[in-house]
């Protein structure tokens, strides 16, 4: 789906030599979970799944994966399987204090089979899995993946060009010549990262290049166009190595600090610098987003991780626009802070927010509607998230010095109000577009499906504020507090339906985990606003 032209353009931009057919070690294609991806992606995703991080003892995932295949035995005894769920550790008779266990410990555990067959009964019935069984399922995935890889289940060789098969061949299924060529690559790579004198390293590099060339040619001759070239893989390799969303949150964090400092000292200079960093972070964010579009051939808004990234982007967009129109750097400050939060959550919660690039469920394979409907709704979440941040900040000013900040509080309430207006337009339009999509692909406009219902409930929450404002029930403080409180409904619609309720037709996005953190986040904010309201109501002396 990615046009060759774009790939080539990017390839040139990335400064690599265009048209090269020989793969690098990182770009070797592997078929996994329904698509062909570069080896570096497979390595990072695998280590992330099993070990929960993309490095092991400071060594990159790719090296770790290489040794798993070459010398699996010692790894069976290494503590590399991460188990978080306390109940599961207890059920397996493992110590609760420990986080990591060896593959051997897990696979030889007598109770594992019982757990797995319990799980099977539940999945066969398509029951909604609770956190415990999701942990069992995860462990099953970890064990199967680890032993799969050590036993040569990695599908690295393309199907023959004259066959209709789309299934690639694993190391086990390859002929001796084919697997030998692949193992030569692995061995050359292994000697390289083991290190040695300069000369040895140089020779190692040459050996690796030769081995790669031989293997690539072999695979290409056998598979023809079934075997993607280095350039086909290069965008994804670039994405994996660049880690754009990691750098994005670092930059947003710096921007937040610069804006904060600008209020304390050297105002205009630091604010100007803040805008520069903020702007570059936004460009980087956009670049990462575009890369993901190019890799998947669709706008990346189909799972929790992708929507968090997209909402962060929207928050920055809206806050930037408001800040520029109203010439108030504190709007950009709030935007940068909220975006930092989004991107940190996306980057640090891989177990909950799966950042891997997955193929789409059939019902979502209609790009136009997916794009319009999901993007509009999540963009409204961005506007509400910005209002939430502004509300938070406003309540803080309120508690600090209500009289001295009267003017600023009023301005904040105005921005929150406008932000909510933007959100309401987008959410109404997005919900209706969702209805159009549902009408088109499921045959009914509105079916009280939990995801759509919660988007609707959030809309009701904000409409209640907008109408209450007309009666005079909601003034500056009410607008700020309301922005914070109503955002709980958005969190429910965005996260809660998939992770707490787990019901309905939008089941392609279900997940588990993080409930305690999200509840704490929501709960603390409600307490915070409740305290603000209490001060507002019963402490008039502060006026």
């Amino acid at each position: 789906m990615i046009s060759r032209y774009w790939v080539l353009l990017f390839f040139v931009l990335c400064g690599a030599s265009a048209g090269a057919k020989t793969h690098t070690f990182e770009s070797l294609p592997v078929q996994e979970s329904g698509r062909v991806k570069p080896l570096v992606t497979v390595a990072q995703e695998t280590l992330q799944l099993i070990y929960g991080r993309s490095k092991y003892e400071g060594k990159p995932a790719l090296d770790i994966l290489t040794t798993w295949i070459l010398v699996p035995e010692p790894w069976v005894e290494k503590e590399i399987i991460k188990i978080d769920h306390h109940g599961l550790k207890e059920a397996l008779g493992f110590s609760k204090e420990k986080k990591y266990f060896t593959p051997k410990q897990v696979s030889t555990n007598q109770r594992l089979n019982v757990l797995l067959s319990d799980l099977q009964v539940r999945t066969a019935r398509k029951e909604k899995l609770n956190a415990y069984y999701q942990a069992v399922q995860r462990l099953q995935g970890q064990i199967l993946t680890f032993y799969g890889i050590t036993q040569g289940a990695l599908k690295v060789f393309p199907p023959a060009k004259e066959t209709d098969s789309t299934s690639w061949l694993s190391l086990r299924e390859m002929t001796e010549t084919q697997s030998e060529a692949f193992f030569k690559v692995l061995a050359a790579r292994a000697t390289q990262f083991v290190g040695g004198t300069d000369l040895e390293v140089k020779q190692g590099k040459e050996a690796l290049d030769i081995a790669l060339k031989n293997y690539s040619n072999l695979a290409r001759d056998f598979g023809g166009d079934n075997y993607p070239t280095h350039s086909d893989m290069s965008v994804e390799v670039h994405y994996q190595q660049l880690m754009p969303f990691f750098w994005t949150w670092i930059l947003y964090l710096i921007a937040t600090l610069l804006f904060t400092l600008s209020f304390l000292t050297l105002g205009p200079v630091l604010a100007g610098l803040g805008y520069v960093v903020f702007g570059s972070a936004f460009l980087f964010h956009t670049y990462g987003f575009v890369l993901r579009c190019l890799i998947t051939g669709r706008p990346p808004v189909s799972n929790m991780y992708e929507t968090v990234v997209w909402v962060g982007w929207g928050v920055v967009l809206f806050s930037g626009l408001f800040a520029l129109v109203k010439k108030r750097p504190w709007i950009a400050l709030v935007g940068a802070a909220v975006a930092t939060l989004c991107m940190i959550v996306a980057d640090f919660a891989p177990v909950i927010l799966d950042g891997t690039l997955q193929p789409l469920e059939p019902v979502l394979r209609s790009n136009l509607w997916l794009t319009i409907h999901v993007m509009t709704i999540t963009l409204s979440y961005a506007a509400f998230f910005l209002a939430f941040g502004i509300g938070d900040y406003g309540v803080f000013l309120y508690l600090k010095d209500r009289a001295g900040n009267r003017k600023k509080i009023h301005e904040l309430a105005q921005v929150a109000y406008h932000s909510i207006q933007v959100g309401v337009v987008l959410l109404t339009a997005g919900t209706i577009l969702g209805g159009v999509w549902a009408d088109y692909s499921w045959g009914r406009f509105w079916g009280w499906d939990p995801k759509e219902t919660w988007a609707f409930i959030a809309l009701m929450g904000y409409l209640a504020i907008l109408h209450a404002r007309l009666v005079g029930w909601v003034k500056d403080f009410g607008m700020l507090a309301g922005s914070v409180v109503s955002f709980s409904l958005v969190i429910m619609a965005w996260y809660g339906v998939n992770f707490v309720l787990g019901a309905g037709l939008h089941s392609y996005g279900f997940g588990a985990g993080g409930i305690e953190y999200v509840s704490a986040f929501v709960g603390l904010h409600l307490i915070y606003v409740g305290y603000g309201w209490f001060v507002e109501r019963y402490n008039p002396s502060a006026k």
Partner: protein
Amino acid sequence: MAREKSKFQKWVKPLASLKIAVFVIVSIGVMSAWGTIVESMYQDAKRAQETVYHSWFSYGIFLLLMINLIAVIVDRYPWKKQHIGFISAHVGIIILLLGSLQTRYFGIDGSMAFAIKESKKQITVGETDLIVYSGLAAGGMRKVFEQEVKFIKNPPAPDNPFEITVGGDSIIIDDYRPYSIPQNKIEPSDKKTDGPALRFQISNDNVSESDWLMLGRAPFDVKNMGPAKMVLSKKGAFQYEDGNVLLIETDGKSETMTYKVFTASKNGETASGRVKAGDSIETGWMGLTFRVLKFYQAAREKWVYEPLEASVEGSVAAIRFQFGGSEYWTGLNSSVRLFSDNAFHVFVFANRQLQLDFALRLDEFRVGRYQGTMRAASYESDVTVLEKGDEILKTTISMNEPLKYKGFTFYQSSFQEDEMGRPNMSILSVNRDPGRFWKYLGCILLVFGIIHLFYFKRRRAK
């Protein structure tokens, strides 16, 4: 420029209150939230619809909303240019609600499941009916009772039974399980006419399997267990031909049976003796031991509906009823034959079926998979529309590409696979939505209205 409001407007004024509006908006939010919680608890969308979204409370709130909206529009009369956004948004909601009401009462929302090469006219909808057919003296059956029941909302119970009287017999439904797993159980019977049944286990170090052999009215019953056959037979009814066979013969009078082991490689009988429940037989085939776990001289099959807390794949609703002094359970979409002293009835608890005046034939069904996996990427059905046996049109229905015909729309919604993972059934959702036009019109007005409203306000604020 205050213009005198008319008497009607003064009367309407309290109904146009914004306070009512805020109350209604919050109530709708709370009601909807409750609905999603109900759906999540029971994993059942239909229950949420029947008990929350389509409850009287819900309808009351929407009625209040409607009155509030109409009143507020009347209140603003005479309308001016600045009211365009306001009126458009609020009229949009009124039209949207009316369109939804039309869909609710005149729309059809059903499904159609058919196998490849099958043609079908019926669609199944969500409503559930109780139907009784009675046998006629002259032969044949006649429908004597039919009524829609909403057991999710109003479940029958011993103190709230649902009674049907047909031709002097009464069927009393007095229990309901919304979610249950049907299981076939075999239990001893006291009727002499019921045949014997035997539960066995066959095992060695690597495998262990158990199953039932049941005669009923047949002379013998055979279970094929891979390399060997297990047979329960009336004395002398089964004749050995070939293969590995373990034959158990019963005379129907005593607890003890006789057995014979036939081995293919030895071309005949290799062991024999007597056996009763609890005994084992060494078959001599790959170390397999045959064990008689249970033996009933007279046994009957019974469907048991094991209750569950929430809906799962394969669960059905089940009802219990009393008829002629006996107690029965039956699941949704199955029927029970009932005999009394004076009549014969067929009792049905089922989803309603609607007849279309044309048929659809499934010619072919395809599933596209993601490369190298069993994960479905797309699925599509080739169908032919038939009217009175004539082929009207051929088309392909796929995800997001429905067939529209005579006001009905057929969408690809799902499929079923056989044990080998080959798709064998296509499931279409079938829909007729007469309110569609109004809903779309309402939406357009609503979105236009909101944008105009906010834009206009911002300009005025400046």
